């Protein structure tokens, strides 16, 4: 049960990714990074992950939403827990004032806003992994 968990980050911001990755690696997670949606989807299809950390605004626009919805329809990937870490409210609030999205794109997901405290990041990752694990146990 103490096997190293494999995480994937899909985020276009290299500074943010570098910071997040170093925190997660220190906490003994194995971390892969994709800097654009295409590489991200390819990684998800070729390698098994235990959790996805997903940005929203990348490439052409709100691509993170597109990825999350796609995962939700994929029987192989819809049980992958997703932590959306986004600056979307800051990035797009001038157009859409108000609350950030409440995600229900896949079975287990949550949204936190950038910047993220290291402690909160680790807590959320752990909690989502646990929830997903418990769900898996139930369905067996």
């Amino acid at each position: 049960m103490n096997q190293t968990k494999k995480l994937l980050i899909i985020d276009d911001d290299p500074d943010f990714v570098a910071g997040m990755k170093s925190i997660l690696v220190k906490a003994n997670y194995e971390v892969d990074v994709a800097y654009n949606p295409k590489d991200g989807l390819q990684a998800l299809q070729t390698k098994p992950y235990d959790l996805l950390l997903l940005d929203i605004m990348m490439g052409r626009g709100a691509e993170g939403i597109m990825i999350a919805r796609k995962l939700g329809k994929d029987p192989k990937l819809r049980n992958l827990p997703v932590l959306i870490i986004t600056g979307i409210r800051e990035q797009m609030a001038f157009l859409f004032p108000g609350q950030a999205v409440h995600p229900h794109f896949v079975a287990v997901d949550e949204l936190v806003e950038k910047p993220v405290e290291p402690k909160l990041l680790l807590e959320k990752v752990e909690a989502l992994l646990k929830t997903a694990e418990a769900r898996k146990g139930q369905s067996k």
Partner: protein
Amino acid sequence: MKKYAYFPGCSLEKMAHSYHMSALETTRALGIELKELEDWNCCGATAYFHVDELLAFTLCARNLAMAEKEKLDLVAPCSGCYKNMFFTREHLKHDADLAEHINEALAEDNLHYAGTSSVRHLIEVFAHDVGFDAIKAKVTKPLKGLRVAPYYGCQILRPRKAKEDVEQPRFFEDLISAIGAEPVDYLLRLSCCSGALIITNRRAALSMVRNLLECAVRSKAAIIATACPLCQVNLECYQKQVNREFGTDLNVPVVYFTQLVGLALGIPPKRLGIGSELVAVMPAIREVLEAEPAVANT
């Protein structure tokens, strides 16, 4: 009678109403039906692409899906709308994930995009679908001696759609010849009218407009013909500002190609929206219109 779904675009509702009027008049005379797309929405202009392209594609796709529902090809008289919808269709054609994502959004309006309707520019319909010979055959008032600068602008031609010649197009010249007028060698015919820079960078825009107008004057054109409302408005409505900024004395009428075609088809100027311009068109065309019809065919 060939029928199209007609997407006028926001400009044609008011600012370019004469384009709308003349488009409907001339197509009717040429045996084409333009059926206005019901409840069409803005194509996103350039602004949406500055913020989120997925959203911009969605706006365009809604219009495309509505044209599909009518089982008609979509025709846009505005080069900007045309470019946006043409390339949205291309993106959706080559990206199944994108098409699926956007279709989920379109479902909110009970629409579905499949890619069955193609996207045409109005001038393409004239030049290609109707054809120069058919237009020529319907001309009752050839605009003999009228020197016209064919102004293509940008987005009819660019970005390139396939392997077509974007450097030496001829269709606008051929259209002008077909209605009996004389296309001049207009050196800057493919240059930009400055687009939205007229709002976002007025100094640059006015200098670009000045170059285009002076080039038309140098080529001894009596009139500039356009195929885009933004080109027309920039070239025509800002001449006063150009003259003030540069101390020039420019006074060049700028019309839509549909207005010239309409005149040649014998449609009265008023029904083509002539008279609503800030640089009067009548002085440039009066002589041509009042000329006696040629006695015999050669």
